[in-house]
């Protein structure tokens, strides 16, 4: 399934949940959604894909009960565009300034993760990918370096899901 209408019952009955986060109209900020979409298009079984969650707090409900979750978002850290960060979100400390919230009335991925830790609402396994973006102005389409990384990440995620 995809989109914003999240059927939690369906999600919990499946194995891996892929969550892409971003704004499709802010160029490289689309990268999380792009990866999620590409993974969905492969039609792999036992995978659920959520492209965009409008409300950071809703992430807690989306991933609760899933056995394995993969989240993909863009980051701005000053590294080379297209660089990839990969965190074991259950066991590693994640720098809070890397995945910033899009709204102070909502919460960021990392905040949602922290809140889920405190409330015992984490999935069993969770990988958080951050892809360094280059261009976040208004418009559509990924920068070439980001596109290249995103396509490699799609392959890597598909491979992981097949295991």
């Amino acid at each position, binding site marked *: 399934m995809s989109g914003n209408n999240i059927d939690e019952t369906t999600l919990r009955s499946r194995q891996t949940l892929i969550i892409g986060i971003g704004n499709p109209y802010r160029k490289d900020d689309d990268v999380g959604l792009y990866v999620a979409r590409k993974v969905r298009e492969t039609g792999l079984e036992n995978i659920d894909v959520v492209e965009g969650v409008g409300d950071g*707090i809703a992430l807690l409900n989306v991933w609760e009960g899933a056995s394995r979750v993969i989240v993909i978002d863009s980051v701005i850290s000053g590294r080379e565009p297209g660089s990839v960060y990969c965190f074991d979100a259950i066991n590693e400390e994640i720098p809070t300034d890397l995945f910033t919230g899009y709204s*102070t009335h909502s919460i960021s991925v990392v*905040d949602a993760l922290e809140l889920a830790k405190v409330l015992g609402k984490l999935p069993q396994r969770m990988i958080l990918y951050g892809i360094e973006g280059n261009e976040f102005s208004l418009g559509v389409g990924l920068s070439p370096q980001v596109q290249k990384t995103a396509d490699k990440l799609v392959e890597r995620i598909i491979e992981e899901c097949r295991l």
Partner: protein
Amino acid sequence: MKSRTIKVDYLARVEGEGGLNIRIKDDKVVDVKLRIFEPPRFFEAFLRDRKYTEPPDITARICGICPVAYQMSSSHALETACGVSVDGVLRKLRRLIYCGEWIESHVLHIYMLHAPDFLGYQDAIEMAKDYPDVVQRGLRLKKIGNDIVTLLGGREIHPINVRLGGFYKVPTNSELKALEEHLEWAVDAALETVRWTGTLPFPDFEQDYEFVSLRHPDEYPFNEGRVVSNKGIDITADQFLDYFEEQHVKHSTSLHSVVKDRGEYLVGPLARYNLNFDKLPSSVQQAAKEAGIAETCNNPFKSIIVRSVETLFACHEALAIVKDYNRPKKPCLEVKPRAATGHWCTEAPRGLLYHHYTIDDDGVIQDARIIAPTSQNQKAVEKDLLGFVQKNLHLSQEDLTWQCEQMVRNYDPCISCSCHFLKLNIERE
């Protein structure tokens, strides 16, 4: 001469970008400025020349927290211009989606943004370590608000199913029925929330406000009513600009609204509650009284209790609408354009939201005006701060700064919503 400055460069737990400057000289507060530096957004300008059917979708983008309010005010204003009135089940569904927005917005503010202030935590994550059950209750309650907006609006943020005359698609009886059991839980959880907020410690501070909100003869207001105040205003929305005006101030990209020839006023939960207490169901009135607020409440810090009372009301109202629902044959009424101007106000979670549109015979928008609740409250926030700081100069810098931020958060300001811009005239000599 002793002077002291309180400066908060960047306000946390509010929507949008703002800061605060307070100057104290010889134990007297000489200047308070809520600085809004969120860039202006020009929504009114780019609505011009668009089709009359577009504002519900375009203006919803002004705010991620209260898009329904923008959809409701714009739809009503344009329907009025076109001589259409939406009634019956479709009217009830509009109240229902508004209930959803009030629940999600109020609960977010109560649990995630405001309660940590009263209990001395930096944020809700810290608070959740000591109050996990309370935060869980808040998250579940908020989700029910989101679910209502998702069901009726198509998605939880920036809904896409609202249109002039009603909705693109209305839910089936069974889809709405599925909410019933959740709303029954929500009524109990909201009552617990009222009781819990009533136990928080409140600074002793009251102001003589001019409260402004809608008032409807039969119901607690969402979509309809006259614009009234406790100081004599009682008008229709089309008289709004005769009584209220927006002023540009140098330190803010948000305009400041005032009652003409009088000054600041207050919109939002506290105003609605004070002007419409008699329209709340008796069980909700009782809960408010038990939580320690009487029929009138002038302490802005207690707005957290009032928000929880309104949440309880919204859960009651939503449950009643869901129980009574019978799917209408058509999801919307036809709205044909004609050259006219339409004005309307509805009650966003943060208060009165005024829209007006002038369209031509082909339905092309000639003029648009939007006055958001946060900009209406800017002056009241500054006056509260002035009064509060003056009374609490004995506090340490740290405590006073903390309480000033808390004071701003009493309003749950949505700074992003409030930023539009005055018409710009350049004169060259």
